[in-house]
């Protein structure tokens, strides 16, 4: 067992792409936790999607040992966290399990929106913060200015920020020393009843559910009978271990330590992150404060392109939700699309990640219907219902008014793009709350409807600012507004999967943009196809996709019969990527692409 004074627990937090995972790599490597020949970039990003997109989605913890300049050997437990706003919940949860944070700031980019958000999370968790200026190897790095910025914008002392390059390894020894000397050791009582925090859990196909724990007081050993205080569930512990970063089984975990346990738990849903773990007998009585559960904010329907694959989809969703408790799903039926699921996600990236995994790991082609947020519908009779799917909008005669979720968005942007950002926020029905400057950068705070942001706001923001703006948001609550359901009719038939809720003032522009997009997305057919947007019975926009005029193969003689047949076989496969609505084939990607606005 390790003395408390020789333990340091910390998270690595930063804006997306500022180099958290690369710093984790260097810490793992320079302490000899993983041999040089086994190193690979972003070692902790193990999922295919993480590797492909070069981003962290899931927080990961590792235990490393470090022999410090004071001659002592320390146990360091680090948690690498994701930077994307969709996964902010992972970050704040991880922080609850540790005492300090390395706040990484890209010295060529400076303070960004998630840098700020992470500082707030860290302060909430009473963390000691060590600012780390990364990427000083880059010619564009301006560590001095960025230090000033940290002091101005965030208000923390950056005079002893560590200057590093996680890529080249410059400054890594200083980071390790700073961890030991500047971050606090954990506190805890070895002899007190077991009190451990359930930090995270996931499904491993060999081991079942793996639970990441942080021991506060007491000792956890293999064979112990444990109890989850909130759920009341009891389990005998099968295995205890730590991540280095591979799993390594050990005998016990003492106060201040982090590690994992397995206990033949069937489903991730049987564990509740933030729960307190104790011994069945002589356990602690007082639970830890726990975490606010994560809430899905974006909903969409997922349907198999080939309706025969519904059962496969059901299986795949079950398996995925074993591993990711933050997404929700329930069965949904649609007149046109048949059976599918309505799923809730933390944001659009989360949605894309889950959809990608379903398509790739389970080989199912999916139709994703228009994403929606949750609206509160206040009925005439005084009751309130939540609307997750615009298709379920009740009859208007019973509806008194609607409320939509709002957010507080913080955007940091270089001065020259400020005008574009303000215009974008204004177009999205935003209300400006604050505008301050830090050097040549503006920080704007807007109150915006989530509905206007969830979908393509971030893409638009990146494009109008050439990637120089950063963005973060928190949900603030619900507010009444004039919202209506807009339907899309293709060849005179309503396509539920394209229904969206829109603000009355924006309806016409939205409708026009959508029908124009659809006209490009739907291939020409043998007949002309009217594409209309309607509110109630009123058509607000209309386009006509003209009929195909000529496609016949010019020559087809004896030898061409075989070739032509092969082509038809190929087209058969291509057609599987479309779904038929009435007589019209709509390609799978149209449902999402139709919603992307150019302005």
């Amino acid at each position, binding site marked *: 067992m390790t003395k408390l004074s020789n333990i340091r627990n910390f998270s690595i937090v930063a804006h997306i792409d500022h180099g958290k995972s690369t710093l984790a790599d260097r810490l793992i490597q320079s302490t000899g936790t993983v041999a040089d020949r086994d190193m690979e970039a972003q070692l902790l990003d193990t999922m295919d999607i993480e590797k492909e997109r070069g981003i962290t989605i899931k927080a990961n913890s590792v235990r490393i040992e470090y022999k410090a300049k004071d001659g002592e050997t320390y146990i360091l437990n680090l948690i690498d966290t994701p930077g994307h706003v969709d996964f902010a919940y992972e970050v704040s949860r991880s922080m609850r399990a540790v005492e300090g944070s390395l706040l990484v700031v890209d010295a060529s980019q400076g303070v960004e929106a998630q840098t700020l958000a992470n500082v707030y999370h860290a302060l909430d968790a009473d963390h000691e913060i060590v600012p780390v200026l990364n990427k000083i190897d880059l010619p564009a790095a301006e560590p001095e200015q960025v230090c000033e910025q940290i002091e101005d914008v965030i208000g923390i002392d950056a005079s002893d920020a560590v200057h590093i390059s996680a890529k080249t390894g410059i400054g890594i020894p200083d980071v390790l020393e700073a961890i030991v000397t500047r971050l606090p050791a954990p506190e805890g009582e070895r002899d007190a009843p077991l009190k451990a925090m359930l930090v995270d859990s996931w499904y491993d196909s060999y081991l079942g559910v793996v639970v990441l724990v942080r021991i506060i007081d007491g000792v956890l050993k293999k064979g112990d009978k444990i109890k989850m205080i909130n759920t009341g569930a009891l389990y005998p512990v099968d295995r205890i271990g730590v991540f280095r970063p591979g799993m390594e089984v050990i005998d016990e975990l003492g106060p201040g330590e982090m590690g994992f346990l397995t206990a033949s738990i069937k489903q991730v849903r049987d564990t509740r992150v933030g729960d307190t773990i104790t011994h069945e007998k002589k356990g602690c009585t007082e639970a830890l404060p726990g975490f606010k559960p994560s809430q899905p904010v974006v909903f969409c329907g997922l349907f198999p392109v080939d309706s025969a694959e519904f059962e496969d989809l059901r299986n795949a969703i079950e398996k995925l939700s074993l591993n990711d408790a933050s997404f929700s799903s329930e069965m949904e039926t649609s007149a046109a699309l048949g059976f599918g699921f309505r799923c809730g996600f933390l944001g659009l990236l989360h949605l894309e990640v889950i959809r990608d995994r379903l398509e790739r790991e389970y080989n199912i082609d999916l139709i994703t219907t228009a994403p929606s947020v949750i609206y509160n519908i206040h009925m005439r009779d005084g009751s309130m219902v939540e609307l997750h799917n615009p298709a379920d909008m009740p009859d208007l005669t019973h509806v008194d008014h609607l409320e939509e979720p709002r957010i507080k968005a913080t955007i940091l942007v270089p001065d020259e793009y400020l005008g574009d950002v303000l215009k974008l926020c204004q177009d999205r029905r935003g209300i400006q709350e604050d505008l301050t400057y830090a050097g040549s950068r503006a920080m704007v705070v807007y109150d915006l409807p989530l509905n206007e942001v969830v979908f393509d706001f971030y893409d638009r923001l990146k494009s109008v600012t050439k990637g120089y703006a950063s963005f973060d948001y928190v949900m603030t609550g619900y507010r009444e507004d004039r919202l209506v359901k807009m339907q899309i009719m293709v060849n005179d038939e309503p396509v539920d999967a394209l229904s969206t809720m829109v603000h009355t003032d924006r309806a016409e522009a939205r409708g026009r943009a959508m029908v124009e997009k659809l006209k490009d997305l739907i291939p020409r057919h043998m007949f002309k196809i009217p594409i209309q947007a309607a509110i109630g019975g009123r058509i607000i926009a209309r386009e006509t996709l003209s009929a195909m*005029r000529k*496609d*016949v193969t*010019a*020559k087809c003689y004896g030898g061409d019969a075989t070739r032509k*047949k092969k082509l038809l076989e190929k087209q058969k496969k291509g*057609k599987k990527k479309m779904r038929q609505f009435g007589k019209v084939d709509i390609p799978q990607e149209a449902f999402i692409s139709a919603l992307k606005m150019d302005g």
Partner: protein
Amino acid sequence: MLEDWQHGGFGVYVHWPFCQSKCPYCDFNSHVSANVDQKRWFSAFLSEIERTVVGLEGRQLSSIYFGGGTPSLMEPWLVEGILDALKSKFLIANDIEITLEANPTSVEAGRFQAYHDAGVNRVSMGIQALNVPDLKRLGRLHSVNEGQDAFDTARHIFDRVSFDLIYARQDQTLDQWRSELKQALAMSVDHLSLYQLTIEPGTAFGDRFSKGGLAGLPSEDLGADMYELTQELCEAAGMPAYETSNHAAVGSESRHNLVYWNSGDYLGLGPGAHGRITQYGHRIATETHLAPGKWLDAVENSGSGESLSRKQDGFEAQEEALMMGLRLRSGIDEVRFEQVLNTKVEKIQGLKEIGMLETANGFLRTTEQGRPVLNAILRELLAG
């Protein structure tokens, strides 16, 4: 079952895979080769005739077609030798059609009389365009005048002469095509093939196109306008389309090509030739080695140029018949092909409702509106 192959007729296709030069648009099995030992090829063709004729002896042959490549590069004795061999194996219809594809250069025109004497009674000439710049762009070796001279020679020697034009060329306007087509109709005899230029992958045009080159190709709309104009002018001139791209005076249709579209039987001889033969209640699809050298070696060393022989099941054969038969203006026989049509009743009904298909005289056929979008119709029927 397709036992009644007689319905569609029986033809032999002979492939000659060599050309003087390779045209940039062409994806036919055609190759440029400096010295071709035609005696060796003759032996190989004879050997293939012996092999493939087994079980078919005594059938009545309605057509023989020398296609290419450029069959007008064959020595007349070679053509004659092959014809004699075929005539010795099969019953020959009184009105047998024997076609040879010819490129319209003066050298080739010099051989026309000898082909006629060998038994050829119809030529199909690749005129392609009636203006010099376009002939150049299409990589053709002949001029307009040379082409016309060759054509005149042909029409004096043969009763039946057809020629091919390619339209929807780069930078071609609707008016240009109108006057060119009028000129073509004025010189035509009884048959015309009018092909919309197709950019085929793997050709020089295909490569240029995929790299963003080949500017000035017509839009779908202009292509459609040209197609419609073609129908109009040919109809008025008494040369209506009897198939997507083939026009003829009534009774002068190419019998050989009708074998393909009516799903008759055909033997394929030579490299890359396909065949369809109905025997013992099955339709058998055959293919031979594509590369001329490989085919020749295989025939000489193993006694067979065949690379594939596969029984089609009845349904597959019927689907193929539908695919080919709808190219014809007359369409396909609803009784003969009821097996496949019965499985597509709803789809056919839907296509009739939107004006793409119709039934006339017991035949299912495309409407005027459906004809130019046949691929979409077939996709609906066969790839649904």
